[in-house]
């Protein structure tokens, strides 16, 4: 990154942390958590202990981090090495990222940046400038991505509260600051579970590893009466709605399976297909990891310059305005951004190697995406 870009980023991040400290708090039981941060063009510093908001503020002002993190785990000694921390328990966290949803819109808003000559282009297998095939991909998240991620969040919320008995007031949803959402569940019966047990919870939520017997399809002498039905709770009810569509079609479709000599395997195939449709698309590794540090709510995401912001009403939440807090001071940049984007209800781009004067939050957004240099 160029010196002047770096300076603009650091100045803007510092100003944000100065002006918006009300958005950033240490979580509950801070003394038992591990904190960490990264600076621009530098590695990770972790295993830090921070006791209160005042100490957090000091860290932000002294270090001007590009990213700030905090553990979901609680430790006796959060500042010691991993093996000596004495892990006690951890909140449940789920990561829903629109890049994992494999949406068709994605290729339309992904810029490809050549690693050799820095040329930026869209939908090409070779750099149009130097013909290199080594690229970085920079996605400018679109509304469709956010909407689809929100749908996953709602489905996850339903499973957490109905199937897993998590009380609604113990669930919090955050916009990640870039392309998705983080869902936190506190004070649940799962706090003390280790990684392997959490991986089973993940499989439950993602609808992975299901067998036909669970839905009433026995390999030998299957019995129609034991098949899944609409008004059942949990996955049996959800799968019934997905598979049969309407109550009137249920009986006929079950008979079709039973009349088919390969019905069991046909049903098994249906289950696998259903996984992609009705399984919740969370990142399994995130939930299984009980020692991870997560972006701190209220902090900036250096991949976008947007804030990891709590969403109290997910339906109405618009990250492109509700999580955009960097100010609008006019800033001149040399932009090479072949895809347009929207921030604070204003459209920017596309820009083809143009010198433009735009509000600072738009400039920072493009610098974070690697698509401009400040002029």
């Amino acid at each position, binding site marked *: 990154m160029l010196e002047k870009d770096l300076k603009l980023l650091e100045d803007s991040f510092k100003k944000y942390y100065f002006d918006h400290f009300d958005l950033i708090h240490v979580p509950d039981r801070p003394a038992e958590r591990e904190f960490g941060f990264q600076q621009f063009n530098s590695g990770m510093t972790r295993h830090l202990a921070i006791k209160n908001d005042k100490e957090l503020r000091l860290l932000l002002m002294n270090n001007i981090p590009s990213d700030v993190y905090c553990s979901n785990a609680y430790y006796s000694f959060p500042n010691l*090495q*991993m*093996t000596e921390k004495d892990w006690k328990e951890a909140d449940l966290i789920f990561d829903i990222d629109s890049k994992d949803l494999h949406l068709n819109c994605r290729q339309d808003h992904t810029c490809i940046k050549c690693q050799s000559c820095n040329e930026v282009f869209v939908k090409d297998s070779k750099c149009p400038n130097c013909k290199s095939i080594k690229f970085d991909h920079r996605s400018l998240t679109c509304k469709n991505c956010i909407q689809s991620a929100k749908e996953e969040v709602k489905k996850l919320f339903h499973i957490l509260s*109905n*199937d*897993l*008995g*998590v009380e609604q007031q113990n669930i919090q949803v955050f916009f990640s600051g870039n392309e998705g959402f983080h869902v936190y569940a506190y004070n649940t*019966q*799962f706090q*003390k*579970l280790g990684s*392997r*047990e959490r991986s*089973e*919870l993940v*499989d*439950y939520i993602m*609808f*992975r*590893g*299901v*067998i036909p*017997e*669970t839905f009433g399809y026995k390999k030998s002498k299957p019995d129609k009466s034991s098949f899944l039905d609409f008004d059942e*709770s*949990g*996955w*049996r009810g959800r799968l019934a709605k997905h598979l049969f569509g309407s109550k009137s079609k249920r009986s006929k479709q079950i008979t079709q399976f039973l009349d088919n000599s390969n019905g069991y395997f046909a049903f098994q195939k249906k289950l696998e297909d259903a996984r992609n449709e009705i399984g919740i698309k969370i990142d*399994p590794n995130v939930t299984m990891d009980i020692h991870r540090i997560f972006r701190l709510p209220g902090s900036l995401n250096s991949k976008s310059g947007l804030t990891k912001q709590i969403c109290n009403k997910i339906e109405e939440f618009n990250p492109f305005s509700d999580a955009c807090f960097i100010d609008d001071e006019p800033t001149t940049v040399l932009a090479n951004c072949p895809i347009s984007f929207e921030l604070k209800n204003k459209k920017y781009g596309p820009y083809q190697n143009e010198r433009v004067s735009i509000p600072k939050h738009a400039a920072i957004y493009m610098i974070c995406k690697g698509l401009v240099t400040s002029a």
Partner: protein
Amino acid sequence: MINLGQDEMAKYPFLADAGQYLKDKGFTLEQFASDPDLKLIIDKAIHRIETAAEGKIYRSDIVNDHAAKDASLPREVFSFLLAVVLLKLSGTHSLIRRFALAEARRAEKYLEKDLADTSEQEDLATQILRDLFSMNVQKNNDYFVIPASDYLKHSVSFHEREWKLVNRKVENGLVFLTSHETVRLVRKELGNYINTKIQNASVPSMIDSFSESIKRLTSLSKKFATTTISSGEYPPCIKHAIEVLEKGENLPHSGRFLLGTFLLSIGQSVEQIAPLFKNAPDYNEKITLYQLNHLAGISGSGTKYSCPSCEKLQSQNLCFATPQCNGIINPLQFGKKKTLNA
């Protein structure tokens, strides 16, 4: 401490404090060795061990919750306690393991029945499940419900898919089970509990007149010693990882982790393994050595990383199972066959 009645003691003899029980009944171990009338119980104990060794469940004299004869209840308990003493004296670990498992399965049957008979109030079966295995069971119509977190703690060691949480009825944080399934969840821990009880049992160093019985057990145990024969062939996931690297293609981090931990586990050194990565598109000798040393626990926190399970590899798309992989749960078990010496 769980209070036990006579019937219950016979069903769950491992709950008894052995020394105290003998004392209460007015016996000493030496008496069993010398008194010809009590010799019968030694035979019963040996029979109990032999049955377990054959992988069968010892059929006791308890019928429908009641002893067939009045005297048989204490005999049931004595034969268990004496079996423990004999096993401990003989020090035959293969027999102790088999005995503990068979006794666990025997107790499982009673637990299942006791659980099914559970009325509203708390009974011994739910108490055992809670106090010994921290599993909170409640009756709910035809089902037994336990908190999902308790379920996961126990089911996580099962490999059959039917035990996955996703294949269970789950509602409002609770898992719905039959009495059979509820008790099946703790079989292994019940076995471990009995095993620990045997290991920790205090027994005299030797009682001469037991020597004949102990000889019998020692020779019996020889039948169950196992030897492991290894084919020496790499499992398909490892072959695949090596092929990818040989072709100069990119092997993901998880694949490199698999290869590194696998080869270290079978005894190769960091220096032997490092050259395998030479063809990787991003090869850097220093980084490779650093990472391998880290896996081996030579550098870093000193933690030695173990080879990931087959299940984990499946979820990482690194599993390329062949029929030869049947029945294994970790690549390290590939091509290894356990054989009985019998």
